[in-house]
């Protein structure tokens, strides 16, 4: 069948008419398949939700038990029939529980990547290549400027600064789901075994990662009762990015503002946010990884969504791969 009739964009999100479901809908719907737990993809209020067990757990942690009427955990790699189509979930390597969703009918298979990355990440399963006719790729960092450096070098920058400025608190802004835990895990891999202090907004998710066997070491709440302000000198404290410029940051001695994000590659971005030490750590593909992934899958068509759609479409054209932008609305391409 024609792929355009199997899956197409609607104001509520990407819709599969033959299966009667939406993928990552941005408004409440009857039936939703969810790729991963980030708030712009996983919203509360759907009637029925199909997602990986971890994604469902994360939604429950964020929205409470009533986040939907009924839910079902999808086994990675298992095929399930929904209406007239088959759907299957495959690891996307983005955050814990993140999956690509393959939708198949009448001999046509479309893979919705959701958000994905190709780098090794100690906190989630690696991306799996799924052959398909249409690959729907995100393009958050879909510009040739984005070349994310090796994570270890970025962690080394933080460790170096801790030695250089032992009297200052090192305040790392990192998204609460995925990035924060990955930064902690990478610090541990680099041999940093001091306690890491976290903002309250991170505690439930860090606990959850721990319960899933992802070792984060000595994690403590960054509350002032821990001791006086000076006890945070030379400590690593992790909070959501918004907290860096919030009153919360005042409890720490002379903090170094750090932000762990793929956007930190752009100097002006770091400057505008008042970031003193940018750490270029991304949970998305950079440009070479996006283009390499498309080459490896070799799909008949590429549909491009949230991010720099035009550049990736242009690249596909140059490579002789049919491509078009999907123009889905409601996804936050800044969220990294």
């Amino acid at each position: 069948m024609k792929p355009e009739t199997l899956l197409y964009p609607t104001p509520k999100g990407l819709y599969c008419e033959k299966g009667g479901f939406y993928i990552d809908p941005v408004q409440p719907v009857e039936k939703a398949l969810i790729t991963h737990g980030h708030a712009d993809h996983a919203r509360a209020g759907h009637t029925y939700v199909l997602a990986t067990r971890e994604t469902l757990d994360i939604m429950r942690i964020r929205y409470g038990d009533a986040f939907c009427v009924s839910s079902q955990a999808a086994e990675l790699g298992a095929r399930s029939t929904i209406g007239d189509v088959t759907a299957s979930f495959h690891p996307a390597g983005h955050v814990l529980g993140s999956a690509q969703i393959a939708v198949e009918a009448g001999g046509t298979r479309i893979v919705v990547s959701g958000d994905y990355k190709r780098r090794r990440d100690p906190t989630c399963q690696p991306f799996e290549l799924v052959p398909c006719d249409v690959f729907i790729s995100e393009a958050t960092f879909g510009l040739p400027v984005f070349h994310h450096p090796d994570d270890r070098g970025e962690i080394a920058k933080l460790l170096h600064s801790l030695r250089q400025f032992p009297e200052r608190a090192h305040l790392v802004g990192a998204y609460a789901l995925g990035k924060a835990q990955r930064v902690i895990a990478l610090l541990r891999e680099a041999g940093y075994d001091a306690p890491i202090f976290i903002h309250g907004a991170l505690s439930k998710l860090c606990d959850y990662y721990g319960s899933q066997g992802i070792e984060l070491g000595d994690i403590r709440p960054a509350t002032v009762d821990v001791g006086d302000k000076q006890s945070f000198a030379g400590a690593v404290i992790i909070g959501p990015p918004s907290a860096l410029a919030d009153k919360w940051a005042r409890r720490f001695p002379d903090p170094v503002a750090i932000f762990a994000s793929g956007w930190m590659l752009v100097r002006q971005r770091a400057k505008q946010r008042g970031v003193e030490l940018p750490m270029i750590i991304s949970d998305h593909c950079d440009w070479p990884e996006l283009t390499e992934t498309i080459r490896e899958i070799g799909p008949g068509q590429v549909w491009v969504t949230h991010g720099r759609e035009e550049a990736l479409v242009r690249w596909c054209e140059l490579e002789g791969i049919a491509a078009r932008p999907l123009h889905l609305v409601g996804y936050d391409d800044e969220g990294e």
Partner: protein
Amino acid sequence: MRAFAELLDRLVLTPQRNAKIKLMADYFRNAPDPDRGYALAAIAGTLTLKAVKPNVLRQLVLERMDEVLFRYSYDYIGDLAETISLVWERPSSRETAVQDVSLASVMHQLEMAGRANVHGLVRNLLDQLEGSSRFALLKLITGGLRIGVSARLVKQALADMGKVDITEIETLWHGLSPPYTALFRWLDGKADKPELDMPAVFHAVMLATPVGDNDLAALDPKDYAAEWKWDGIRVQLASLAGMRRLYSRSGDDISGAFPDILEAADFEGIIDGELLVGGTMRTNRATRTFSDLQQRLNRKTVTRKMLEEYPAFIRGYDLLFAGRRDIRHERFLARRAALSALIEKAEPSRFDLSPLVPFSSWEELDRLRADPPDPVIEGIMLKRLDSPYTSGRSKGPWFKWKREPYNVDAVLMYAQRGHGKRSSYYSDFTFGVWTESDGKDVLVPVGKAYFGFTDAELEVLDRYVRNNTVERFGPVRSIRAEPDHGFVVEVAFEGINFSPRHKSGVAMRFPRISRLRTDKPPREADRLETLLAMIGQPDGDMETAREPI
């Protein structure tokens, strides 16, 4: 190259002075010679490299990249060097790892390259370096290294590194050149202080301390000379052995912008004085304001038109060298006599002598200070008659006694978050005063201030901003400011002038928030007319306003 590139990346994003100094001092301690010398030159702006044209770089990148994709990238980043450093793909056929080419080797290769092979050399270097180093290289060769570090700050870093006084670095500075190997060997403690063969070097200036509350009571007026404190910039003019240099008080060489003064300096010696614009007293023409002087400042070169419209001159305060003889150890009066004799013979339109102000008591001097004879006077200097010329700021020999600042009550209109320690506070404020527009009173912004208040007052200001935000534009918040609801502050400033660039038509010098006027409703804040009336007056007191001289 990598260590240098990392240093640049950190410096650009580090707001605190001390942290910048630490980053530089650590780099200088760890980097090898002559790399660190070239890095120093790059930061201090003493590096001379043949510039590579942006077009050459554009051609290089388009050899490997689709033009449309490059345009998307450039539009997004907005800076050519940064865009190229980011999009550059090293050829995948060459499986060599990224190399770290030394900064010195890069300098050497660039120096040796002829016009014809610069293209190939830059391509080759870009292929060898990683992202940050590519950015540093491109910034160096396009001459666009803007990192927010003054020459003074980098000298402080050198002083910290070698545990020496910054004045020693300042004195040596203009006698040395990249890659500063002798300087670093001395700072490392591995060699003696370098000997200079250039006589017209900078000598650290003598600074005054402000007059404190009870300072004068303990001093005898007979021990001191008073002179006007002129509102220009303090300079040092060295003219020795045919070499002429004009330095700012921190030792920056500003000769390039003042050929008129250098040309007229046909004497031997080193003068300390005030750089001003207008006519000297010896030609009986008026000294012009600081804003006129500003037209001549911060330039590398100057046009003939600027020289005619804004003629510069030096008003002499002191003499450090009479001919080649160092007279800094002599008494103030003796040095002044020598200065007077030197200026007597110098070009009358370019040099005059700062006159002494006769007085017999501190009360008399205070009255003179409140009512100076020229609008370009910003206070009084007190100099002990027997004081030698010593570098730096020690309390006792010289005092500065400034005129009272101007004050207005203004209403806070916008607030922006601060940097560094203050990044969680709204600490940068735009304030306004009332003016009439279409028959209604509206606030017009007249200035910005981000200091003057205490930490406790900042808490109050920050809380007001957070609770009274009307609109947000990126990092800026617009604050509620109505006749009966708003925040009034007393703003103190050193001077005010007409400014066509500002909406209000006026610009203040050194405005700061001197008091929070929580007692005052916004409708009682000052009006623009009050500010306009202050322009050209020697002090801010409206009652004693006189015609400008």
